[in-house]
């Protein structure tokens, strides 16, 4: 009974909310219709709650309760603050695309000499141009997940990037998403297409400008990596301490394509990264890794669903969580092997390190296997730092703190070292070390 009421409440609140936001959202032709349908799908389900298996550990109804109103268009002052913050997370040699409060900011972005190799449009442009109407349907596609449907209804801007056949983009493309407001929400959606044999690295950084607080970010990235393409995607969430970030990645890869995913969450209040990867071409390879660095009251959830839809694909996943204070880390990994997907090789390892008595870690590594000639395995552990190891290092003259630092670094290093590019690995390591320093 109460559940029904809650559902009606959730739907009701947002329906006014959508109506008031609609005039500010871009869209010509079929777009308003697509938004309305996506919104209906969201309203039917309401915010995800713990009785939904996929959201069992991250009950948004209890944790955030409501969706905040859409952030206003950033003014000059907001852009200036965003610029200062974006500089701090700049990845070495990367070309930069900046979204401020859910709106693309070309004045902060710089593609450098890649202008000619990359085809970049803002989502707003794509949705408002009726000539690209067919594209709108694809970019705004949804799944049965309510937060993805809500994103399709509310997406205000984002980037639509395509890389032509055989093109190798050597410099990383960094998309910096900055929040400058307080108690507002931003919905962004980006679309990335790598044609046959194209290579690219995309880094998504979520940050807050000084003074931003209590905001909600909802981002969706849809990526297609064509046959023999190679895509690296890093997501680094370093939001304000009281912010909510829910990001979803929907990624499909083609024959003999290669996909590297990495997700790091190191601050915020509620964070969820959900990645849905379909290995749709034979011989494709996935390496998905991530680190949750959790302290204070952060609730960090990483959920990865890998769908082995065809034979001869490989997926490897390594996730590590370090949890301190009253933090909670959640990892859910699901490997689906379809009946036709013979000769699949899939492995998944998830480990959590608990540093305080109030810390909690939930792991749910799931296997769903319908083919008989496959090798799949998963492992999950959780526990405290091994005192014997600390003692061993102390006996060699390290201080207690240094010994702990070294062991924690080695622990998360197991996952970070899977990042292929040196500069990105260094970048992530530096961020992780910064987190560790702050903790002490």
């Amino acid at each position, binding site marked *: 009974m109460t559940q029904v009421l809650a559902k009606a409440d959730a739907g009701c609140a947002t329906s006014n909310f959508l109506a008031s936001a609609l005039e500010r959202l871009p869209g010509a032709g079929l777009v308003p219709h697509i938004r309305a349908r996506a919104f209906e799908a969201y309203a039917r389900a309401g915010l995800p709650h713990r009785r939904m*298996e996929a959201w069992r550990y991250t009950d948004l109804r209890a944790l955030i309760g409501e969706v905040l109103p859409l952030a206003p268009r950033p003014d000059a002052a907001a852009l200036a603050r965003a610029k200062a913050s974006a500089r701090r997370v700049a990845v070495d040699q990367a070309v930069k695309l900046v979204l401020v409060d859910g709106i693309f900011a070309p004045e902060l972005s710089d593609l450098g000499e890649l202008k000619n190799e990359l085809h970049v449009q803002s989502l707003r442009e794509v949705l408002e141009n009726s000539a690209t109407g067919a594209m709108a349907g694809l970019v705004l596609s949804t799944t049965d997940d309510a937060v993805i449907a809500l994103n399709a209804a509310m997406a205000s801007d984002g980037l639509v990037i395509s890389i032509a056949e055989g093109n190798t983009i050597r410099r990383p493309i960094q998309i910096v998403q900055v929040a400058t407001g307080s108690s507002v929400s931003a919905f962004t959606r980006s679309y990335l297409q790598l044609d046959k044999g194209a290579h690219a690295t995309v880094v998504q950084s979520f940050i807050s400008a000084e003074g931003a607080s209590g905001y909600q970010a909802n981002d969706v990235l849809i990526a297609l990596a064509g046959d023999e393409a190679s895509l690296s995607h890093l997501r680094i969430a370093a939001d304000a301490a009281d912010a909510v970030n829910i990001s979803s990645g929907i990624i499909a890869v083609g024959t003999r394509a290669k996909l590297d995913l990495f997700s790091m969450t190191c601050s915020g209040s509620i964070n969820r990264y959900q990645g849905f990867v379909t290995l749709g071409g034979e011989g494709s390879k996935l390496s998905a890794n991530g680190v949750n660095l959790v302290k204070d009251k952060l609730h960090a959830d990483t959920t990865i669903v890998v769908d082995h839809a065809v034979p001869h694909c490989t997926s490897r996943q390594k996730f590590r969580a370090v949890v301190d204070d009253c933090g909670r880390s959640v990892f859910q990994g699901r490997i689906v092997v379809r*009946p*036709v997907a*013979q000769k699949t090789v899939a492995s998944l390892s998830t480990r*959590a390190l*608990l*540093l*305080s*008595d109030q*810390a*909690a*870690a*939930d*792991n*749910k*590594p*799931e*296997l*769903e*296997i*319908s*083919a*008989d*000639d*496959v*090798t*799949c*395995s*998963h*492992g*999950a*552990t*959780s*526990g*405290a730092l091994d005192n014997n190891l600390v003692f061993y290092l102390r006996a060699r003259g390290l201080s207690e703190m240094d010994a702990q630092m070294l062991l924690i670094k080695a622990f998360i290093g197991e996952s970070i070292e899977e990042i292929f590019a040196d500069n990105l690995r260094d970048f992530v390591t530096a961020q992780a070390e910064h987190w560790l320093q702050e903790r002490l």
Partner: protein
Amino acid sequence: MVAVQETVERVRRIDVDQYRYGFETQIESDKAPKGLSEDTVRFISAKKNEPAWMLEWRLEAYRRWLTMTEPTWARVDYPKIDYQDIYYYAAPKPKKTLSSIDEIDPEILKTYEKLGIPLREVAILEGVEPPPGGPQTPNRKIAVDAVFDSVSVATTFQKELKAAGVIFMPISEAIREHPELVQKYLGTVVPTSDNYFATLNSAVFSDGSFVYVPPGVRCPMELSTYFRINERNTGQFERTLIIADKGSYISYLEGCTAPQRDENQLHAAVVELVTLDDAEIKYSTVQNWYPGNSEGKGGIYNFVTKRGDCRGKNSKISWTQVETGSAITWKYPSCILRGDNSSGEFYSIVISNGFQQVDSGTKMIHLGKNTSSRIISKGIAAGKSQNTYRGLVSAHRKATGARNYTACDSLLIGDKCGAHTVPYVEAKNSSATFEHEATTSKISEDVLFYCLQRGLSEQQAIGLVVNGFAKDVLQKLPMEFAVEAQKLISISLEGSVG
């Protein structure tokens, strides 16, 4: 790696169309009117001559059940059950008051003989050879409580058990004869409000076994209950309550079969175990309900709530299950590790064939200090079956020093079936150490090297190691009872997937 031929053949031998217990006993029976209402609950309570408190307890459960909805989270799919189209009580009509085993309806005796379950007080079960060279075990006895549809028809060795102080009787009798014990423990492990099927059971359970082992007593023999569904359109709702008082030990076995029919029948049981300080219960199940035919028609819906409460310090509960039957299995024998230093174990082999759907596993809930648990689960899916392991391990804030080790492996035979693993590992205490692994490739390099060095091929070496491991699980079962399980003993899990 795909399954080896030997495994394929062994699994084939217990395929759904090979079901040996599908016969029906022609016997007149006494039934409650079809359907479920407060009157049905009153009818069952009256049939059992229950005291008023028991009726009240049932009615409260019934009223609560009306407010609940059937759970849908398990990975099983079945048409909606019409709870008004079931007989909730069916008992063979007694011809007269029984004073000895010889007066039981010969049809029933014949049934149990056919099933290989001795209702006469014999020591050795049919079809079980004593181990070669082993002791002839003249004093190895098993006391059996036979439950036929809704009632217990016979309980053997009652005198001998009484001498040891052990109470072993149908729960309906215990409610009348030992109300203080039943009232103290019934519903304390699985509360009436626990889940949809347990609540239904609380309202309409008709019989089952009750065991109480007094402090310091090591039960002199294995106890066992054999459940048989015979009547058409009936549901079986039995309730088992086992209490091991301080420092006691008991080993209990459970088996079940049902006739072959085209319609589905519901079985919703509740088992509650309580161990006090230093006590141990070992609970074994060979579940062989009718699984449906090779087209997926008929079969038992097995929705069972089994839970043990390690209430005292240093207590131990160990679940062993061999599951081959039922169209649908929904069952999670669990341990609540409440007492400090208590430990829980779960050993399971689940084999699914035909159109069977299994969603089974365990829950290990660590509440006390220095508690430990161990989960070993092997799943084999063949035909068009779906076999899911679903297990929860959780450590609460105060469970300092909790430890768990979980290993679950599954094997698929053919590409029309599915094997799924859904572990939930939840740690709320930093000193809790949990390890979960689901892979068979993790055979120690040293062991393999040792075998290779002695001239075995790698395949043989893996076979040897894996086989030895599976036997470890099966040998937890008291073999005297588990004729069926013996067939499975050398199932090789080579080529299994996580």
